[in-house]
């Protein structure tokens, strides 16, 4: 049927027949060899690390620890998701960690010190993120200071602002129920399954619709088998995750039950879907990639390059604000360490480990989640092994270096094979 549609139109030069399954696999392998690794290093790394820690520490592989991974990694993943936008246009935001700290401090200050209701404080925290992003973006694009320097200055300055907001570094408690719930409460198991069903059905519907839409028009599509495998993989992954999260984690379930999906998981999933949609399905997202790929080409195509560059800083700082609120929720308090120490580097590491290029133009939001999972597993596993902070930092640093090395080498390979 597709062939008939094709012969009716003028001969479409571009359609070279539908690729077969083996053709698809070969194409994928060719891309790998050409240096387009995608998320493969992160997934492999994740598997290797999980096996490694499970063998050394059997309690790594418990339902309780699995849930911990999510709550421990949430803030870093959220910040990394925003960082992907900045990295995509070839900039960097070193201040994202303390930007999340400032936003968390605004939240704590308004909630606890000034006694505003939680929604006012949360909106103010998110608004602070937007303002920080606007300021950074303005300084980078309109004044023309390199983003490295602007955000390095922000790194120091925001630390100061944060200390002032929480009155010189005391720990300010955050007790508003809805905020604390994000990291400390679980959804009922049934709701978890419902959400999983919604996600899988939604993904399947969008993939199959796309497949049908394209094959009806006689355009090249991925083989149906590949589409189905993709849907199946997601279903198994999501289903497995929900199943494990719904297992009883409490040592004595009679006293207190602790099962179900932590509230932060659907929050991350929602933002992942929303931001992925923005990047891959809207003109704005296309323009972000274009600015990162060739700024001059983007400008000549009539894209307002400055506006795009400012907007990515806004997205990044806003996501940092979300990360800050989540961090405040996790400890039910905000202190001088919120968003500080290793948060930023973990977030940059997460994005890069996931496959987002430091050179701009290449990356996806899901990279932040995959890379964030790697970082969370390392952090968690090292903790279980009672490794000293020194060993932990050293190990994480090496993994980040490895990821950046893979990025640089695959880029070189891509240039060599004309597949930049």
């Amino acid at each position, binding site marked *: 049927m597709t062939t008939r549609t094709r012969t009716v*139109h003028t*001969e*479409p*030069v571009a359609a070279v027949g539908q690729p077969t399954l083996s053709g698809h696999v070969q194409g994928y392998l060719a891309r790998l060899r050409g240096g387009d690794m995608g998320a493969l290093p992160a997934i492999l790394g994740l598997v290797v690390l999980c096996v490694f820690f499970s063998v050394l520490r059997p309690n790594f592989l418990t339902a309780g620890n699995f849930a911990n991974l999510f709550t421990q990694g949430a803030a870093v993943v959220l910040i990394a998701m925003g960082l992907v936008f900045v990295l995509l246009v070839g900039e960097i935001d070193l201040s994202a960690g303390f930007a999340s700290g400032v936003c968390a401090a605004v939240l704590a200050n308004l909630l606890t010190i000034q006694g505003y209701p939680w929604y006012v404080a949360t909106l103010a925290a998110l608004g602070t993120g937007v303002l920080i992003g606007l300021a950074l973006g303005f300084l980078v694009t309109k004044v023309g200071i390199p983003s490295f320097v602007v955000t390095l200055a922000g790194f120091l300055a925001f630390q100061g602002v944060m200390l002032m907001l929480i009155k010189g570094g005391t720990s300010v408690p955050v007790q508003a129920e809805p905020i604390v719930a994000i990291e400390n409460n679980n959804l009922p198991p049934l709701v978890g399954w419902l959400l999983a069903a919604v996600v899988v059905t939604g993904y399947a519907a969008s993939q199959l619709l796309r497949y049908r839409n394209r094959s009806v028009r006689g*355009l090249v599509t991925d083989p149906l088998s590949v589409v189905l495998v993709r849907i199946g993989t997601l279903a198994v992954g999501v289903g497995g995750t929900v199943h494990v999260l719904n297992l009883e984690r409490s040592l004595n379930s009679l006293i207190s039950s602790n099962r179900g999906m932590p509230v932060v998981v659907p929050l991350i999933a929602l933002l992942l879907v929303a931001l992925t949609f923005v990047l891959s399905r809207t003109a704005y997202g296309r323009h972000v990639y274009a600015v990162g*790929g060739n700024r001059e*080409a983007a400008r000549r*195509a009539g894209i307002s390059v400055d506006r795009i560059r400012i907007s990515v800083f806004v997205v990044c700082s806003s996501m940092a604000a979300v990360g800050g609120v989540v961090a405040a929720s996790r400890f039910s308090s905000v202190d001088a360490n919120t968003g500080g120490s290793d948060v930023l580097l973990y977030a940059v590491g997460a994005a890069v480990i996931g496959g987002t290029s430091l050179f701009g133009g290449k990356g996806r939001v899901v990279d932040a989640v995959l890379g964030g999972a790697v970082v969370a597993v390392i952090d968690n596993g090292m903790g279980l092994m009672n490794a000293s902070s020194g060993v932990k930092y050293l190990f994480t640093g090496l993994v980040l270096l490895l990821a950046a090395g893979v990025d640089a080498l695959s880029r070189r390979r891509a240039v060599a094979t*004309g597949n930049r």
Partner: protein
Amino acid sequence: MSGTPLLELRGVDKSFGPVQVLHDVAFSVHPGEVTALVGDNGAGKSTLVKCISGIHGTDAGEYFFEGQPVTINGPRDAAALGIEVVYQDLALCDNLDIVQNMFLGRERRSGLVLDEPAMEEEAARTLASLSVKTISSLRQHVSSLSGGQRQTVAITKAVLWNSRLVILDEPTAALGLAQTAQVLELVRRLADNGLAVVLISHNMNDVFAVSDRIATLYLGQMVAQVRTTDVTHAQVVELITSGRSGRLGTATETGNGYLSTRVAGAAE
């Protein structure tokens, strides 16, 4: 011969500070024809193109499009008339695929969402209308394309927008023999499809292979605009290097380029 020129410039002057780059330039481009714009380095070719495409304003002179006087205040005005420029450095994004590059900045949407199938079909149709057979998949990244293929994409991108006049800045400068032939064929086909084409080139073989008219700039003056069949290689080279060749061209100190063009035109 082909009636009103699609684009006609008269008496265009352009200075950058104390340096006058264009003196009283007249230039006309006809639909369905390839007009080669030749001249040595610094003769003012690029400046003239930038004046046409609205990147530079002019200090003096008139601009006619389809015989109507128009004012061009910026690239947008020129684009609105259907004038597209394909620059030497192509301006493609390596990290995007062919369709994405072709529609960059003017994406088709249905609602909020990009309408990828529509864009892909349109791109395939445009390539087919130009009989481009050198591109196997529209969804491959531009980075994986050869120089000739990239040039093809850049030119096709310019054609996609119902453009009337396409200006190509040295499209074959960095290409091998086979690829040059492909691109020249494409240039010819643009004109055969009814577009007006301006081809900037240093390569006389290319110029004589595809152009219908040759316009020669010499030190900022339009010294001759003639039909390609009326001149020889040697004459054009002479025009480029010395501004005159026999009765063609008048590179005088007073720079009476406008008159010379009329004379050349009368020779048609």
